[in-house]
C-alpha cells in the first residue's frame, strides 16, 4: 500500500474516533454517556463507509443504509431513525452531514423517543408507530429538531443529546476540511479509496483461508405467542461468503422483527470475529459478504412491523445461528436483558451482561456483553444519585455457567428496587431455552426475570409500585468439550 495513503487513512480514522469521544463526553442520555451506545463514521462521496469508531457492533452494517437514504435529498444536514429507511430501531437517532469530502455520520441511542411506554422499549408493540416518533430521512432544521424533542418524554435531555451529536459533526467537518487543505482533496479521496480497498483485500484473504462449504443451522427466539425460528445457511466459496435466511419464520406480530440492515450487522459481526478481528472498521470489509432473506420474514420485516426487540434480541440470535452454521461454538447468554423503567418524571434504561460461551481454547468470560452490544453498566452510585431507584444486588450468578473442558462464563444477578410508582419493560431472551454448550460441553443456565419473587415472561411490560423489587438473573454461557 502507498505509504502516504496509509498515513492519511490513519488521520481519517482518528477523526472518526475523536467524533465519538466528543459525543460520549458531552451527551446527556445514560445510554450514550455511561454506556456508549453510539457510533460515528466517515463516508466518501459515493456513500461508502471509510472509517468508523464503534462502541457497539450492532451499528456496523446498518450505517451505510442511513447515508444511502440521505444521498438523494437536498440540504447538507439530515436526521433519521426510521428502521425501514436506514435506521435500526427508533431510539437510535442518526444524523448525517456533508463534509469537505464525503459525509459524517453519528448514531446514538436516545433514552426516550416517545411511543406507548417510557424509554420507548415496549414489550407488546405491534406497529412501529407505537414505539415512538418516526423520523424518515429529512433535512435537520430547527423546526424538525424541536418537533422531535417535543414528542419525547424529556425534551430538554433530548435537546442536549442532539447538541452533543451536532458537536461531533461540526468537529468532523472542521477536521476533514483541515485534512483536505493539508494533503490536497485528491490525495484524501485516494486515501479513502485505499482504506476501503485495503479492508476488502484483508477480509478476502482471510475468507479464502476458511474451508469452502455450505452449512445450515437453526435456533429460536422466545416471542410473545411462542417460539419463532431463525434459520441461516452459510456458504463459503473462495473469497466470498453468502448468508441466506430462507426457512426463517414469518415476521412477528409483536416486535422481534429486524429490518435487513440489522440482520446484515449481525452477519458482519460474525464474519469479523472469524476473519480479521483487529482490522479497523470500514465498509470494504463487508464487500465480500452477501446477506439475503425472504421479504416479510422475521429478519427482513416489512413496514410497519414493530422492531424494537429485533435490534437487541433477534440480532443476538442471528449471531448464534450464523456462528453455529460456521461450526460448533458454545453459545453466550444470547440476550441483552433490556430493562426500561420510567414514568413521566424519569426514564432509565440498561442492558445487563451475562456469561460468554466457552471457546475451544479458552473459558468464556463471566458477566460481560456477549455479541451485538458492549455497553458499560451504569455505576450503582451514579444510578442512585440520579434516579428513584436503589440497587440491592449486583453480583456474579455463580453456578450458572455450563461446564466442560472449557467452562462458559457465569451470568449475573441484578436487583433494582423502585422508589416511586413507574412502568417496567423487560425485553429478554434465553428464559425458556438455555444457551447451548458445544462438543460435549454443558449448557448454561437460562435467565430469569422476577418481580417481588414472582417469575415473569421473557417479554414483559407492567406497572410497578413504589417498593417493588425487580430481580434479573442473566443466562450463563455454554461449555466447550467434555469435562475432564
Amino acid at each position, binding site marked *: 500500500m502507498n505509504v502516504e495513503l496509509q*498515513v492519511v487513512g490513519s488521520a481519517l480514522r*482518528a477523526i472518526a474516533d475523536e467524533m465519538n469521544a466528543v459525543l460520549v463526553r458531552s451527551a*446527556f442520555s445514560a445510554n450514550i454517556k455511561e454506556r456508549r451506545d453510539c457510533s460515528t463514521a466517515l463516508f466518501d462521496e459515493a456513500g461508502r463507509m471509510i472509517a468508523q469508531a464503534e462502541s457497539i457492533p450492532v451499528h456496523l452494517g446498518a450505517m451505510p443504509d442511513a447515508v444511502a437514504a440521505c444521498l438523494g435529498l437536498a440540504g447538507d444536514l439530515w436526521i433519521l431513525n426510521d428502521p425501514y429507511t436506514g435506521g435500526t430501531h427508533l431510539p437510535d437517532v442518526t444524523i448525517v452531514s456533508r463534509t469537505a469530502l464525503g459525509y459524517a455520520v453519528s448514531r446514538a441511542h436516545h433514552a426516550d423517543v416517545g411511543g406507548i411506554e417510557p424509554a420507548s422499549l415496549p414489550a407488546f408493540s405491534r406497529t412501529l408507530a407505537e414505539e415512538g416518533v418516526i423520523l424518515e430521512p429529512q433535512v435537520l432544521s430547527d423546526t424538525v429538531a424541536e418537533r422531535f424533542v417535543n414528542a419525547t418524554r424529556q425534551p430538554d435531555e433530548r435537546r442536549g443529546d442532539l447538541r452533543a451529536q451536532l458537536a461531533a459533526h461540526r468537529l468532523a467537518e472542521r477536521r476533514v476540511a483541515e485534512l483536505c487543505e493539508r494533503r490536497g482533496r485528491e490525495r484524501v479521496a485516494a486515501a479513502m479509496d485505499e482504506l476501503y480497498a485495503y479492508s476488502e483485500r484483508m477480509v478476502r484473504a482471510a475468507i479464502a483461508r476458511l474451508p469452502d462449504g455450505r452449512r445450515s443451522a437453526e435456533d429460536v427466539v422466545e416471542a410473545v405467542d411462542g417460539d419463532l425460528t431463525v434459520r441461516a445457511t452459510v456458504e463459503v466459496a473462495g473469497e466470498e461468503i453468502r448468508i441466506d435466511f430462507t426457512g426463517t419464520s414469518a415476521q412477528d406480530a409483536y416486535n422481534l422483527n429486524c429490518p435487513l440492515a440489522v440482520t446484515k450487522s449481525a452477519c458482519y459481526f460474525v464474519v469479523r470475529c472469524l476473519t480479521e478481528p483487529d482490522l479497523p472498521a470500514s465498509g470494504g470489509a463487508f464487500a465480500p459478504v452477501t446477506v439475503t432473506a425472504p421479504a416479510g420474514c422475521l429478519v427482513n420485516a416489512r413496514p410497519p412491523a414493530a422492531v424494537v426487540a429485533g435490534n437487541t434480541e433477534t440480532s443476538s440470535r442471528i449471531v448464534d445461528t450464523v456462528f453455529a452454521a460456521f461450526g460448533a461454538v458454545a453459545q453466550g447468554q444470547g440476550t441483552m436483558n433490556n430493562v426500561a423503567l420510567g414514568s413521566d418524571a424519569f426514564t432509565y434504561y440498561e442492558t445487563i451482561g451475562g456469561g460468554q460461551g466457552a471457546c475451544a481454547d479458552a473459558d468464556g468470560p463471566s458477566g460481560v456483553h456477549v455479541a451485538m452490544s458492549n455497553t458499560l453498566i451504569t455505576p450503582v452510585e*451514579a444510578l442512585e444519585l440520579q434516579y428513584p431507584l436503589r440497587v440491592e444486588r449486583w453480583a*456474579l450468578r455463580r453456578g450458572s455457567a455450563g461446564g466442560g473442558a472449557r467452562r462458559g462464563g457465569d451470568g*449475573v444477578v441484578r436487583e433494582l428496587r423502585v422508589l416511586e410508582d413507574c412502568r417496567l419493560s423487560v425485553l429478554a431472551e434465553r428464559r425458556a431455552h438455555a444457551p447451548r454448550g458445544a462438543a460435549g460441553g454443558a449448557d448454561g443456565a437460562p435467565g430469569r426475570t422476577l418481580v417481588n419473587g414472582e417469575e415473569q415472561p421473557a417479554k414483559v411490560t407492567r406497572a410497578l409500585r413504589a417498593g417493588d423489587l425487580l430481580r434479573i438473573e442473566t443466562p450463563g454461557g455454554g461449555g466447550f468439550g467434555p469435562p475432564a
Partner: protein
Amino acid sequence: MQSTRVAILGVDVGGTFTDAVLLDGGSVRTAKVPTAARQEDSVVAAARAVGVEAVERFAHGTTVATNALLERCGARTAYVGNAGFEHLLHLRRQTRAHLYRLCEPHPEPLVPLERCHGVRGRLGPDGELEPLDLATLPDLGDAEAAAVCLLHAYRDASHERAVAAELRRRHPGVHVVASHEVAPEFREYERASTTAADAYLAPVAARYLRALAAATGEAGLPEPLVMLSSGGVATVEEAAAHPAAILVSGPAGGVVGAGLVARRAGFENAIAFDMGGTSTDVCLLPGGRAARVAEREVGGFPIRLPTVDIHTVGAGGGSLVRRDAGGAIRVGPESAGAHPGPACYGRGGGPTVTDANLLLGRLPAELPGGLVLDRDAAAAALAGIDSEAVVEVVNAEMLRALRVVSVEQGHDPRDFALVAFGGAGPLHACALAEELGIEAVLVPNAAGVLSALGLVASDERRDRVVSHVRPLAEAGELPREGEADLRYRGQSFELTVPLQDDLAAAFHRAHEERYGYAEPGREIELVAVRTAEVVPGPALELQVTDCYKVEGPRLLELPGSTCWAPAGWSGETNADGTLVLRR
C-alpha cells in the same frame, strides 16, 4: 536565577538502566548503571557513580509498584464490599475485553473471588439505609492486605471507617486500606479498583522503600523523596502508605524534566515526546507544567488518582516491522526488546524502526557502548521494505498521539515547543514538528537521563480531592486555589476548570472550547474539588561548557541518544546545554 550551593541528587530506576543526575553548585554529573534485581542496590550504585558527598536533597523514581502490579507479585489481598456487591472487582463495568475476540480475558482481578467478602449495612446517597452490622464481617484468613470499599463512601465514610477500624483491631498484621482514604470519589468500580491496587501493593512497596531508605542512609544520603504519578514528590512514609500513587513514578519524572528544560529555554508551552525502545509517551505541558488527569488505567485497572496526562503508544525504536496481508506496513506493538534487539545488533533480531533509521544514515556506525551496527543484517531483515516508508508509518502513529494530547484537547500545537528525549525521541522529533507546524524542537543535553533530571527539580506535592456531586450553586465557599470538576447536570463526564471567582462562566467557556457549544441556561453540577499543597523544588543552576551549533542535515550523538536534524533545521545549544533546533 538564584544559585544553589548544595548538591541535589535524582535517581530514576528503569527496566533496563538506572539513571542518576547530580547537581553540585551548578555542575551536572550523570551516570547510567544496569538495573539490578534489587532496585535499592542499583540506586546506591548509580548514586555512588555521580558522588554522594554533601547531598542535601535526594529524589527517586521507581518502578517497584508498577512491576509488582504487572508481574502479580503483590500481597495476598482481601476485599470487603457491601453484602450483595462482593464481586464488584470481577464484574468491572461489564464490557468484554475485545469487541471481536469473544473469549479474550480481562486481566485477572487482584483479589480472587474467594477473598471477596460482604458486610451488612448500607448507605444511600442521602444517608443510612441499613445500619452497619460488624458481626457480619468475615475472617480474613491468611490475607496480608485488605481493601474496603462501601457504596457512597465518597460522601459519608462512617461505615468504611468503622469497618477498617474493626479489621485493624482484629488483624493487626494486615495492611487495611479504605476507599475514602485513597480515592474519595464517586463511581464505585473505579474507586474499588484503586483501593484494591493500593492494598495489594502496600506491603511490597513498604518493604522496598524501607530497604531503600536503609541502603541509601548507609551510603550517606538523606531520606529519599519519592516521585508520585502526579509529578510531585512525597516522603517515603507517604509513598509507602498509598503506593497506588506511585504507579506512574518514572514517566512522571521525564515529564517534569521536559517542563524544566522548556521553561529554562524560554518556552512557555511544550509537549514532552519520550520515544523509547518499546513505547512512546507524550504529554502536554501548557505553561511549562504537566497537564494532569484524575484517572488512568494501569495494567488494565482503573486508578483514580491524579496522574500526569501521559498518552502512551505501543511503538518505539525497537518495534518490529512487517507487511500485512493487505500490503500495509505495520509497526509494533511487538518489539525486539533489548535481547535480541534490532536486526542491526547482529544477534538475530527481526526488522525494527532502528534498522530503518540505520539504513537512512540516521544512526552512527557504532553505538556509545561499543556495539558496531550491522547494516547488512538490517537490510536483510527489512527484506525490501522501504526504510523511508517505515519511518513515515511510525511517525504517523506518533503524530496521532501528539494530536490526541494537543488538537483534541483544544490546543494548537503551533503554540508549543517539542521536547524530544528517550533513546529515539531526538531522531524523529523534527519530522513530527514539521507535520504539526511546530517551530522549535528542544533536545536536552540530558536527553538520555531526563527523568532523573526531573527528579532533581521536582516540587513536593500532596493532592487532595473532596467529592461534592451537588449543584454548583449550593456548593458554598470553595478554596481559592485548585481545580473543580464540573459538568452540566445530567452529563457523566466532568471538565476540570481552575478554581476562580466566576466558576460557572469559566465552565461554560471550557465546554464551548472543548465541545463546540455551551448551555448557559443549564444547571451546573460540582462533582469534586481538587487541591494540592505544593512545596516548590530547589532553584537550579546549570553550567555547561561544550556549546555547539548545528546545521541540518546532520547526525548528532548525545549521551544515551541520537539526534537527527534534517535539512532546513539548524540551531545551537543554550546555557543549559539544551539544543534548540528551529526551521
